[in-house]
């Protein structure tokens, strides 16, 4: 059952080689064995998962089977799932049980998938190392002294260590792709608006987007087929015809124009990572792609603009945590204001408070134009750079992260160094573009991810390009040693 693709698991379930209950128990056993060292899951509930598996087995028995029916999926603890705790990695929501399902969870439930548990994450998805979680840091399965990346670090460790066949994540500035790069698997952030944000706890609403995290591009395509679709309960959900993301996986990529932005190969990129990426680009040339030079001249402004826009939206979104209707409330208080102030002081961690303060500052009287409006204008410049680039190419490629995984604690006290982790991923969130990270090699035993960025709604195209690479290489099939 280990290392099987989602397609192969699905076929095995259909042929009754094993049941969903057996499969789910197999992965629950792996979680039980390895979670104490990895800390990938916040909530595991064997009874609930096995009950879902038993239901799925009935569906399979009666011939009502979808491709993901009976397959256990680890869910990032940012997705509300009724009857499961949804903590968002925060003390503020430590005991929160959502009264309803997020659309993503509902879609997996409708497909007959099994919820394997809720995965650890940076608090409110704010972080790039999974060290800001109230529930403790997650470890990188390739080397437990290193971080898995973040904010979807629990899902990343779970997929990399094969504690789950696949997982979900969310990506506001790189939170699917950077951990996919640091943990050596395939992760995809869709076009903004393609996957519903309903019931997905909000961080920066104009940037947040959910996506699949799995071993291969094929697996990600199968999950995307389930996750996408218009949702009237999310006012930013795109109303367009639902696509199929697996039909065109095998198409030839002869003549595919791969744009390589010179700005992705400058300062800040580790020399060893650069070599791996250059090797991957050579491989693409061998597979028939044509390398084209492109430029994203405003990329260096992506992090500054992001650290205005994301905290501004976060400060607004997180104002709902006031200790009145749900979540944490401080124990002792004199009056209403005292209750608000203490609840938020005690319920939020340092990084979350820092971002709320930045957001409040840039939105405060006298600063709005200089910061928030300015950042929104820069956002358009960045989006325009991509428009120009796509006149010359079909797909943009480069590194997903500037380095391989770093040691736990190394950047924890230096927010600026941590923010630089997202230097190659943030611009696509600002522009709303789909992008993925696929394994492309190793440096000193730690994985390196190649980033593929598509034009809006070109998920099928980047999945196709990734799949062709993966059927000709085996980087994505390597898994960490010592996790049996």
């Amino acid at each position: 059952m280990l290392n099987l693709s989602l397609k192969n698991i699905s076929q095995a379930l259909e042929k009754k080689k094993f049941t969903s209950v057996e499969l789910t128990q197999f992965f629950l056993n792996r979680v039980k064995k390895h979670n104490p060292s990895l800390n990938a899951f916040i909530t595991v509930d064997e009874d609930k998962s096995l009950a879902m598996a038993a239901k799925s087995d009935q569906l399979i028995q009666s011939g009502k089977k979808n491709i993901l029916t009976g397959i256990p999926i680890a869910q990032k603890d940012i997705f509300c799932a009724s009857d499961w705790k949804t903590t968002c990695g925060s003390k503020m929501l430590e005991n929160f049980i959502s009264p309803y399902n997020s659309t993503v969870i509902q879609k997996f439930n409708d497909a007959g998938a099994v919820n394997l548990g809720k995965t650890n994450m940076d608090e409110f998805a704010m972080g790039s190392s999974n060290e800001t979680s109230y529930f403790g840091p997650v470890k990188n399965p390739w080397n437990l002294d290193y971080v898995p990346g973040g904010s979807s670090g629990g899902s990343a460790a779970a997929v990399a260590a094969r504690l789950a066949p696949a997982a979900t994540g969310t990506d506001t500035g790189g939170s699917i792709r950077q951990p996919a790069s640091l943990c050596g698997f395939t992760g995809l952030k869709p076009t903004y608006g393609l996957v519903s944000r309903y019931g997905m706890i909000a961080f920066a609403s104009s940037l947040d987007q959910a996506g699949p995290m799995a071993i291969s591009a094929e697996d990600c395509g199968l999950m995307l087929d389930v996750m996408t679709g218009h949702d009237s309960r999310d006012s930013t959900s795109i109303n367009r015809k639902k696509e199929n993301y697996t039909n065109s996986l095998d198409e030839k990529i002869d003549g595919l124009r791969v744009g390589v932005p010179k700005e992705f190969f400058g300062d800040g990129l580790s020399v060893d990572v650069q070599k791996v990426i250059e090797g991957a680009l050579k491989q693409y040339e061998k597979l028939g792609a044509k390398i084209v030079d492109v430029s994203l001249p405003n990329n260096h402004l992506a992090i500054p603009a992001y650290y205005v826009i994301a905290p501004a939206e976060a400060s607004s979104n997180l104002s709902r945590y006031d200790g009145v209707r749900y979540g944490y409330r401080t124990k002792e208080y004199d009056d209403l204001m005292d209750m608000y102030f203490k609840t938020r002081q005690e319920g939020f961690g340092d990084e979350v408070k820092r971002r709320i303060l930045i957001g409040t500052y840039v939105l405060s009287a006298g600063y709005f134009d200089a910061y928030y409006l300015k950042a929104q204008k820069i956002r358009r410049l960045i989006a325009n750079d991509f428009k120009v680039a796509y006149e010359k190419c079909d797909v943009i490629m480069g590194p997903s992260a500037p380095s391989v995984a770093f040691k736990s604690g190394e950047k924890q006290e230096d927010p600026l160094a941590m923010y630089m982790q997202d230097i190659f991923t943030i611009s696509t969130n600002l522009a709303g573009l789909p992008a993925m990270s696929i394994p492309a090699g190793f440096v000193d035993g730690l994985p390196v991810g190649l980033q593929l960025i598509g034009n809006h709604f070109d998920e099928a195209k980047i999945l196709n390009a990734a799949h062709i690479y993966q059927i000709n290489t085996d980087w994505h099939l390597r898994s960490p040693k010592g996790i049996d």
Partner: protein
Amino acid sequence: MTINKSEIKKIAHLAHINISQEEADQVEKKLVGILDLIEKMQEVNTESIEPMSHALDINQPLRNDVVTEIDIREKSLSLAPHTEKSLFIVPQVIE
């Protein structure tokens, strides 16, 4: 770009977060660095550029005002730290 402790206390007040003197000291150092990073934006002339609030420039959709959700009042109330009857209880605000 500088920000002093009294400004930090002011924005913490706006954000409704208590902040101790010690926390304000720590936050000050980190915030200055972040604000310097943000300041880089000012190097670029954006005079004629339209601000971008949505990645695909779509507008807010409208729908008819009809009931679409089931009643989850009891479930919702059960999540609150303190309720009585069907009310959320907070410290008294009006004498």
